[in-house]
């Protein structure tokens, strides 16, 4: 069947590209291949009837993770080569058994693959899951899209803690840099006119698309995290184009942006306890509360992901004076 042929070609290509990501000796190229793999995975999600995941993968999995990795890959090649040489000269037992590590690792990885294959073949082929349960209860959830009803009602607690993970990562990045805002982070020294142009037209478009994804999430694929990721991508682009973006925010505003969603869940949870349980909002107001919570997710996800980008690529705060001397072309 042609249908099946598409899947086989796609699956094969993903496996080959993943392998190339590993083999590619040049770090930068490897990262580009990783992004390509993410985009191909998005196609796989579409084939598997998971458009929400396809959007999230393209925006977060391939997009933002990829740009984080690419920025990390921009290191002095010569410095790395020297470090590699130093390491090769001094690394204990590996000197006596060159390649032993690789053989053991390959054997372990193959063993894992074999065991996983057995487990996967053993899985029952018929549906065993919560599709039915979700379909029955969806009416009471306040939204008409099953994934949103799980994320923001049935399992809203998990989503809250997930927002917490994102927040903690940002707090961790700030703590590592020993700072409370990102003003000392590196801004781009030489930006090009075309990038500035793109940043200017992208921002309003990104707001439009994010708004659309956010709004449509209640009844069709899309949703708050995807919308937030789109906005974050626009913020990152602005940063690359030399605008200040999130690194222009003061300590208080950055903190408020990072915290907004987590705090909103906390407040909604607290109010829910008067009606029954923590995070309870299944009745008439359900949809409104979900929309409000999703709006906070959009804002916090956008700010946090952009802040993670600014923080992960930045030099430490020590040379902040030098950074400040290179004033950006404009601040927003």
């Amino acid at each position: 069947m042609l249908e099946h042929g598409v899947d086989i070609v796609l699956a094969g290509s993903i496996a080959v590209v993943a392998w190339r990501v590993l083999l590619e000796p040049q770090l930068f190229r490897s990262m580009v291949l990783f992004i390509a793999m993410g985009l191909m995975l998005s196609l796989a999600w579409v084939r598997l009837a998971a458009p929400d995941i396809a959007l999230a993968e393209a925006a977060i999995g391939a997009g933002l993770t990829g740009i984080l990795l690419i920025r990390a890959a921009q290191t002095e090649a010569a410095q790395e080569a020297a470090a590699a040489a130093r390491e090769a000269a001094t690394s204990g037992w590996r000197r006596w058994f060159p390649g032993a590590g690789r053989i053991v690792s390959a054997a372990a990885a193959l063993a894992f693959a074999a065991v996983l294959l057995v487990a996967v073949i053993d899985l029952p082929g018929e549906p065993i899951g919560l599709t039915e349960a979700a379909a029955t209860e969806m009416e009471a959830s306040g939204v008409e899209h099953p994934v949103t009803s799980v994320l923001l009602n049935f399992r809203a607690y998990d989503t809250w803690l997930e927002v917490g993970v994102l927040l903690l990562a940002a707090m961790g990045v700030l703590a590592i840099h020993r700072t409370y805002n990102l003003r000392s982070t590196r801004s781009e020294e030489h930006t090009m006119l075309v990038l500035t142009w793109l940043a200017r037209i992208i921002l309003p478009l990104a707001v439009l698309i994010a708004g659309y994804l956010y709004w449509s999430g209640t009844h069709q694929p899309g949703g708050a995290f995807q919308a937030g990721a789109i906005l974050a991508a626009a913020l990152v682009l602005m940063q690359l184009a030399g605008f200040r973006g999130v690194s222009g925010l003061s300590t208080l505003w950055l903190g408020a942006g990072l915290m907004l969603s987590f705090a909103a869940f906390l407040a909604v949870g607290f109010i829910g306890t008067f009606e029954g349980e923590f995070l309870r909002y299944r009745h008439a107001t359900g949809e409104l509360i979900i929309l409000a919570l999703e709006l906070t997710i959009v804002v916090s996800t956008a700010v946090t992901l952009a802040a993670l980008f600014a923080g992960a690529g930045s030099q430490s705060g020590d040379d902040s004076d030098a950074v400040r001397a290179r004033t950006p072309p404009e601040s927003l």
Partner: protein
Amino acid sequence: MSTFELYAALAAVLFAVGLYGFFVRQELVRKVVGLNIIGAAVFLLLIAIAYRNRGDFADPVPHAMVLTGIVVAVSATALALALARRIEDETGTRRLPEDEESS
């Protein structure tokens, strides 16, 4: 071979590729990439299971799990890269010395 089995098998393959990369590569950035490939493998299996469970729509619970997983993965990745950057600032290399753990 059903679509579910095909993608579930791909998950097993990706898992092994990522794991091998995680073990063998010494550069921290590449280790993080290896972990992200492993993550993709896990997500693939979950989505394949959701596809297997589809009725009027695919099983939304694994979908929600994968969305959470993607956000968690990008968080951990960003933290790891920030650490890698600071380690490079402090030590001049983005690798971990191999024999430190036994000292």
